């Protein structure tokens, strides 16, 4: 049920200019419309301005210039200081952020009621009514969640539903979601999409940003492509192919993937035998997992998120105790890690690019002299070399790592881990939240490392990425390797079935 012809769009943004305090222009005259009953995708490379545009719409980002009309009525407060999240909510705009803002210790209905609690005798919190409101909304839109469950006990997908409930309870008629699928496993993505379609059928106008073009094609009615803060294209989904969208995003045709030389498999670089690891809640996250990794090959670990990948990698890195089994490196063998949460395990955001590039290598005599005094000149030279070699932007070794985009942060981490010169490398979700250009750079780095004889264990929830790179694929399901295939005899269907737990 798309909007009737002639009806003004629910949200019409035009000429939006956003400048960051550093002087960078994040948005340069961007245009964006949302229509009643329709879902619009907002796509672009990292740094193209997607999140900024949604933030500007909902009052989170200060806007220099631009106009906003809601339901055909011009909104004079927009692009002034008085356009705040509170006012945006009052106008029916609800935003679900990539990072949730929920109170973990409170229940679902308390979180939804927060700030707008139904009252009893004018003064007391009426929890029964709050609970009924949550029940009513969740049954109407298929947002299954227990109103009395404490938020800390919920999965990420359920927490996201609570965020959506919060926006709906505040009376949102337009809902914008920033990267809603980044943290979800495929089944959760499917149920999120069902909810969003139901909301659109109910008359809500919806916008989502995503890096995955397949999701846009599956869910959206129309797509807006941003490039460097400007609109590079707006098209209805019927006329948009993923290739066309990718061309608009990059501003050029994507380069064809160069064919790879077959792996020259060398000696064993890592052996995992009968490994068992417990998860955060004491569940058996990895059980009886056995793997062998050889020099000069990429072993891909495919699997739906939450099947023990994180626990496996953390156990290999010594960050998580193992319950049983053995992890064996050959004599003289060394191992490096690209962790899945780079902001948490990979980088110290407050320190400079140069200091991050020697993190964990700072003991090496090149960087650390007598009396434990650091050789700053050597560290700087190494940083200049690695930044140039791996095309980290901006090429400023003294910039704080936190100011880099996600893709460049990942390039930095990969540059450092490869520079250790280890015999094995574990790369966990290396392309998560990373744009197409950086994904390509990361893939090329991994292949080059493999051709130098490094043994690479690639753990990724993006099956296409795994299948494109891996010389051998193992499927992890409920903490076990349930299927192993080599690249020359891949059976995609079998892999899909194994990931879903269907034998």
């Amino acid at each position: 049920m798309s909007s009737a012809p002639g009806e003004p769009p629910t949200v019409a943004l035009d000429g939006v200019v956003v400048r960051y305090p550093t002087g960078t222009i994040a948005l340069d005259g961007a245009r964006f419309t949302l229509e009643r009953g329709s879902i619009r995708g907002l796509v672009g490379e990292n740094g193209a301005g997607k999140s900024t545009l949604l933030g500007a719409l909902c009052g989170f980002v200060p806007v220099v210039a631009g106009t906003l009309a809601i339901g055909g009525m011009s909104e004079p407060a927009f692009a002034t200081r008085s356009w705040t999240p509170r006012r945006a909510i009052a106008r029916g705009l609800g935003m679900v952020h990539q990072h949730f803002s929920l109170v973990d210790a409170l229940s679902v209905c308390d979180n939804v009621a927060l700030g707008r609690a139904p009252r009893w005798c004018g003064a007391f919190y009426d929890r029964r009514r709050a609970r009924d409101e949550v029940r009513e909304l969740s049954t109407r839109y298929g947002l299954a969640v227990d109103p009395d469950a404490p938020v800390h006990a919920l999965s990420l997908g359920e927490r996201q539903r609570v965020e959506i409930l919060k926006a709906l309870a505040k009376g949102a008629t337009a809902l914008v979601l920033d990267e809603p699928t980044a943290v979800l496993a495929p089944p959760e993505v499917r149920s999120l999409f069902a909810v969003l379609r139901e909301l659109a059928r109910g008359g809500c106008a919806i916008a989502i940003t995503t890096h995955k073009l397949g999701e846009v094609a599956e869910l959206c009615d129309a797509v807006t492509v941003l490039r460097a803060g400007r609109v590079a294209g707006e098209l209805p989904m019927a006329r948009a192919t993923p290739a066309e969208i990718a061309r608009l995003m990059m501003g050029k045709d994507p380069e064809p993937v160069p064919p790879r030389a077959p792996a020259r498999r060398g000696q064993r670089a890592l052996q995992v035998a009968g490994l068992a690891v417990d998860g955060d809640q004491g569940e058996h996250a990895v059980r009886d997992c056995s793997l062998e990794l050889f020099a000069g090959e990429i072993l891909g670990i495919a699997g739906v998120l939450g099947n023990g990948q994180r626990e496996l990698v953390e156990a290999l890195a010594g960050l998580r105790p193992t319950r049983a089994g053995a992890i064996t490196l050959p004599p003289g063998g060394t191992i490096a890690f690209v962790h899945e949460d780079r902001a948490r395990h990979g980088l110290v955001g407050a320190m400079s690019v140069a200091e991050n590039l020697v993190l964990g290598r700072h003991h090496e005599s090149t960087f650390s002299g007598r009396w434990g005094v650091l050789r700053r000149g050597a560290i700087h030279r190494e940083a200049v070399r690695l930044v140039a070699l791996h095309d980290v932007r901006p090429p400023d070794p003294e910039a704080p790592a936190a100011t880099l985009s996600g893709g460049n942060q990942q390039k930095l981490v990969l540059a450092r881990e490869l520079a250790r010169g280890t015999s094995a490398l574990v790369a966990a979700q290396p392309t998560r939240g990373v744009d197409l250009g950086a994904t390509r750079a990361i893939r090329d780095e991994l292949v080059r490392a493999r051709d130098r004889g490094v043994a690479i264990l690639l753990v990724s929830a993006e099956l296409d990425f795994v299948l494109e790179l891996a010389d051998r694929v193992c499927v992890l399901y409920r903490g076990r390797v349930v299927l192993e295939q080599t690249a020359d005899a891949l059976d995609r269907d079998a892999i899909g079935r194994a990931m879903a737990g269907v034998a």
Partner: protein
Amino acid sequence: MRAVLGGVLALVCALLAGAVLIALVPTLASWGTGEPVVPVSPWAAYRATFGGVLGTREGVSWAVYHAGALVLTALAVAIPLRAGLFNIGGEGQLLLGGLAGTAAALGLAGVVGPAPAPLAMVVLVGASAVAAAAAGAAWGALAAAFTRPGRGANEVIASLLLNFVAAGACQYVVKHHLLDAHSGVVQTPSIPLAARLGRLAAVPGLERVFDPNTPVTWALPAALVAAVAVAYAFARTRWGYELRATGANPDAARAAGIGPRRVAVSSLAIGGACAGLASLALVHGHYGHYGAHVFAGQYGFLGLATALLGRGHPLGVVPAALLFGVLFQGASEITLETSLPASIVLILQALAITAVVAAGALLAPRGRG
């Protein structure tokens, strides 16, 4: 640069707010008592505080004496703070350091006895410093031992409670084992003259800057050297690098093979050593014995405030300590010159800290969205 400017502005705001308070105090004090209001002009009060201290050689000397001790107790906070740990235990570390330093001086006095003066001085002062630093470091490391990084047990509580243990233990030892029975108060006998720190006023030329009758000793330049050394260690050494990485992102530091336990123990121990050394400025620099004066001084707790005012930077604590030294000394001037209570200076100190901390929060770069 921006942070320094913000800090200065914040201090000006604190002084303005203090002025309003000073103007109100006489009215508040006489309220309900029926006594006539004796107005105090804020200007006169500030002139008494700052003019009385900064206008005389004696006042400056005393302020600088306090500042020397405060720099060291502030470092005791600033060093672990960079590793993400809040050391509330400076007071206990100072008390134990003072006891150990005094005991070393008293114990070695008989051994060194007839040795020529310069050698006796080197031995006594050196041994006292080593003992004080070691005791402070041990107490700091003990706080770290109770702390299990990432497991909820907390260095704030551990170091805070260890203060009470230290205070009780020190009182006990002085009362029962080191008491100077002739003095009539809880204090040790005087340490030998050879263990006393030399006064800066004895250096030719400096007598014009420092009053020879005030305890401005070599502890002051030593404290400044310590602050510079810590700043250098933070920026240029592997230890400082690991400390900063752990403080800024403990998970990434651990993933990079930096042991959180070693960082916690070393930062709290070195901080504790600084607090222990601060006792030398008091005992070996001023009183000549260990007892009630040291217990009442509260330099360990004031070091917390000084470190906060200095934004936790090892060089920032130097101007912060100087300001507190002036206010500390100003407290006695203000009661002499005006009818205001000495506690007004405590309020000024609190206002200064609040303003600087608030300015830090306001000036911090805001996150997007």
